[in-house]
């Protein structure tokens, strides 16, 4: 059996209704795993970039790419090389913090991780952080002791380094 690896698959798709369903349906039907999927507009008009994070061996990856390519609304598919890819995620963390002491600790942690406080209420603070999924995990772990009320993560999106396609 080949080695299981996490792949970042970047696709350019037509920005039409139903495209997400086509892609998601393909993964379900063929038993491919999806860890994460992000969709947003791209540099090209009428096209969206869909970034899919999936685990599998080389054979599975090959099938994923080929099957994606068969979808008429999928224009381009790339398996991004992990060595030459930057991967970022946005995360919002709402923390229960009333005391001054707690609040200032949260703000300090946020600062160390280059996060920002984007919302404050008498009972809560909301931290915004972007970074690699690992960095986000680390901050979440640190903040857990204060009492996290909610987490909203976008899941990672990715782009190749330099002039690579």
């Amino acid at each position: 059996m080949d080695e299981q690896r996490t792949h970042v698959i970047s696709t350019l798709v037509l920005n039409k209704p139903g495209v997400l369903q086509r892609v998601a349906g393909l993964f379900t039907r063929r038993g491919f795993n999806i860890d994460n999927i992000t969709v947003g507009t791209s540099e090209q008009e009428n096209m969206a970039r869909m970034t899919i994070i999936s685990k599998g061996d080389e054979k599975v990856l090959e099938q994923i790419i080929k099957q994606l390519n068969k979808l008429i609304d999928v224009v381009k598919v790339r398996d991004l090389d992990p060595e030459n890819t930057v991967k970022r995620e946005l995360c919002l963390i709402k923390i229960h913090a009333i005391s001054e002491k707690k609040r200032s600790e949260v703000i300090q942690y946020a600062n160390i991780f280059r996060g920002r406080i984007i919302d404050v209420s008498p009972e809560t603070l909301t931290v915004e952080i972007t970074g690699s999924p690992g960095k986000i995990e680390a901050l979440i772990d640190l903040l857990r002791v204060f009492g996290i009320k909610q987490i909203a993560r976008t899941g990672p999106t990715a782009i190749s380094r330099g002039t690579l396609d």
Partner: protein
Amino acid sequence: MKGSEAIIKSLKDQGVDIVFGYPGGVLLPLYDVLYDSDLKHILVRHEQCAAHAADGYARASGKVGVCIGTSGPGATNLVTGIATAHMDSSPILAIAGQVGTALIGRDAFQEVDTLGLTMPITKHNFQAMQADEIPGMIKSAFYIASTGRQGPVAIDLPKDVQEQEFEYKADFQIDLPGYKPTRKGHPGQIKKASNLILKSKKPVILAGGGVVLSESSDELLELSKLIKAPVTTTLMGKGSFPEDDPLSLGMLGMHGRKVANLVVDECDCLIVIGCRFSDRTTGKVDEFAPNAKIIHIDVDPAEIGKNVDIDIPIVGDAKIVLTSLIKTISKLKEGNPGSTKEWTDYISDFKINCIPRLSFDDVPLKPQQVIKEIRDSIDYDAIVTTDVGQNQMWMAHYFTSKIPRTFLSSGGLGTMGFGFPAAMGAKVALPENDVVAVCGDGGFLMVCQDLATVREYDIPVVVCVLNNRYLGMVAQWQKLFYDERMSHTHLGEVPDFVKLAEAFGVRGERVEKPGEMKETLQSALKSGEPTLIDVIIDPDEILPMVPPGCGITEIVGEYKVEREVPGEIPYRAPHKEKEWE
């Protein structure tokens, strides 16, 4: 122009002259235009038959077949036929009505998510939300359905879009940036394949449905003669190579010919063309062609390596790839003729000793005898369709086909009820050819209401119902693998198929003894009228098979051969290590 008029115009612009359909509330605008259109419409008696008929039309003629159904139940009834076409890469266009755009999503009367339902069973599908999208959509649909790896396309058509007025522009463009099928094979791969083929001492060609779809039977024959390699086919590839040729091995797989299964096991180079390595063809994948290097030619890159590991893949249209392959091999051969004579001699011996026995004088009739008489009654350009079950596998195994597009069968989906409506579609496509459907009693009953259609439209197909009063194929598995516990596979004593036919105004005949099939079929064809022949066959006849999950050499059941005293079958047990390494 109205949306509904644009549909008819666009279909006609694509060369469509006939459609199979069934109307309903949301299709009233479209049917109103059909009323005085010269586009011919055949009113089937069940939407499933519309889809199968369009499929049969496509398989027989190579042109895109068109079927129409209303929203909701009309669309769901089309689904089986669309899925059948999808599995066998058959180019059809299915148009389904939809509730008005303002009602979509509100669980309106007869609303169903047709787009969602057909997404996994079409090559692509569309929903028209504006009438001005229709011309481009239909043109794209035909282009997608009929190029690359062919397949069904569905269009979801809301009622108000059919009624909407728009300004028709003749110079519209279609834009499919995500669709660029590869046609030419990679020259480097073709060179590699040619070298491997010339080095091989025991080559075999496996031809799939892709050979039929790409119209490359001539090239297949030429390649086989050039490299002196025997040819076996999948069910879908049947007809792509003349089965009376000395180099033909017949069908491979679960119900394949013994010679084909054993020779593929032994070969050192397997050249696979337009084939998706279905489990029904390969048997246990790990034991498939254990001694061979495999060359795989296919237009769909996703088929390469999907089920079986490939040594030399070539992505491209089989016709174009085979043409270059033949050229390259011919050139390379000049200095080095090579020889597979030992191999082909061995295979001829082998073949002679396991030609399946067809002649039986038993009553009730043996299906082999029936099939022999059918073969003797019709020309090679006659089109036969099969249903699914024993009838299908008997036909695949025993019936000799020579010409592509003359053997039509539901392979991938194995859809009972396919045979009769597909025959109807084939006959409509090619009225000059005789068309015979060979069905099981179970499968035919699933679609028998369309006897009304063949009567009303005078479509003179002949349906041979191989009547064993059993869901024979399931019964066969119960006999072989479930201790003969015949759970719910006996069909009882009704109907009387002759009377059933007559109730529809269709000729009904019954055949019970050897010799009668030939006579009855010939007179049915001569009559020029739709005819049903009720053929009473032996319910106990079993077709030898490879049990699921086994290697294809592990055939169970008695393999009856033509020779009275069969010679020793010179099969050499496989040497599991690859000779090449």
